[in-house]
């Protein structure tokens, strides 16, 4: 139940006091609430759980992790 998937914010609007966004999950668009990540901008990737974005994915850290994998390969 803690399943959460990454998606990209396409657009945002304020509705019924909620900060809502259209988020693309590999092309499939769903409505997501951004109330837990009010600082999120269009184009940001967020991790989404039961209709709410839990956090913004840190692009630099994501790249760092992938670089680390490459380094492991290089010295492996």
């Amino acid at each position, binding site marked *: *139940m*803690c*399943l*959460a*998937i*990454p998606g990209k914010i396409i657009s945002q609007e304020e509705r*019924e*006091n*909620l900060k809502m966004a259209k988020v693309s999950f*590999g092309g499939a668009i769903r*409505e997501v*609430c951004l*109330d*837990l*990540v*009010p600082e999120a901008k269009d184009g940001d*990737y967020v*991790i989404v*759980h*039961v*209709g*709410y974005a*839990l*956090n913004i*994915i*840190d*692009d630099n*850290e*994501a*790249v*760092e*992790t*992938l670089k*680390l*994998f*490459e380094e*492991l*390969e290089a010295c*492996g």
Partner: protein
Amino acid sequence: MKYLDEYRDSSNIKSIYLKICEITTKQWRIMEVCGGQTHSIMKYNLENILPDKISFIHGPGCPVCVTPIEMIDKAIYLAGLEDVILVSYGDMLRVPGTYTDLLTCKANGADIRMLYSPLQAIKIAVENKDKKVIFFAVGFETTAPANALSIISANKQKVNNYFMLCSQVTVPTALELLLSNRNNVIQGLLLPGHVCTVMGYEEYFPIVEKFNIPAVVTGFEPADILNGVYTLIKQLEDDECTIKNEYKRLVRKEGNKQAKAIINEVFDKCDQHWRGIGNIPGSGLRIRDEYLAYNAEIEFGLSKINIIEEISKIYKNKIIDGSSVCIAGEVLQGIAKPNKCPAFGIECTPGHPLGAPMVSSEGACAAYFRYAKED
């Protein structure tokens, strides 16, 4: 970059795997705390590809599995009342209560609806003003902020026919209980990445210190899990003991402050019964007195009603009784693997679950059934 495929890439997986093989010299037993991680481990066959020296102990991290039977019975009782719509996450509908499950009640005419998000619960309440809408809210800290926001939204929008039957649990206290067990054999922890996305990992430092057990905050994709294992084994082999964060793209040490503030606004700590494990003091979240008007237990006077007696009037025979064979308690505490259960795959299957770990897709029994039946 989609933050998904890269972490499933086979060359990445292979390189980490080789490093793990290289550094592992002793036998290590590690627990992945979260059911979502158990699911990935089984799906990608990670236990079998790793060196024999490393074994996984599957943790209790499936909220559907640990929801106490009394709460399921309460939901079943409430769903049977006039003018009530009961809503919950899909998995909850199939978990056996004492007499029946919610899906059977639905088939018998109760207005029970499956939710994808708590946002829908409020919408249903707004659209059905003449009904009382009860959200059977379960979950770990990952789900708690969304559940909390539904109450805040109802309050802001002055929706007064929305109520919550609340059965939420928190990870650290339960983990402490498992590690305190005399028979505990766990030597390292893969911490639940999405719980930590919300809460951060500061609250695990006292546990790591007290039990002298290293931990790594770990994600859910195969490369994430292997990387978590690598970092954990490295700590174990080097006799190091701290918390390392290998899910940095999402987890900050202090977590998501906004989400934590929202949880605190609506919920406070309470003692909680975990199905198959027992009462764990301080391991639950209940609705604060300020939001009492949204508490279904209060609104429907549940403490004054003998729920079992009420349900038994409708369901004359105890039709579900997996309790004599089901060893879910041992499975949830990592003492037994699902395929050691005599009912596994025979009387108990996802189509006919005897216990909650076979219901939820993140339950260890369901993960074994799906991916490792032949073992």
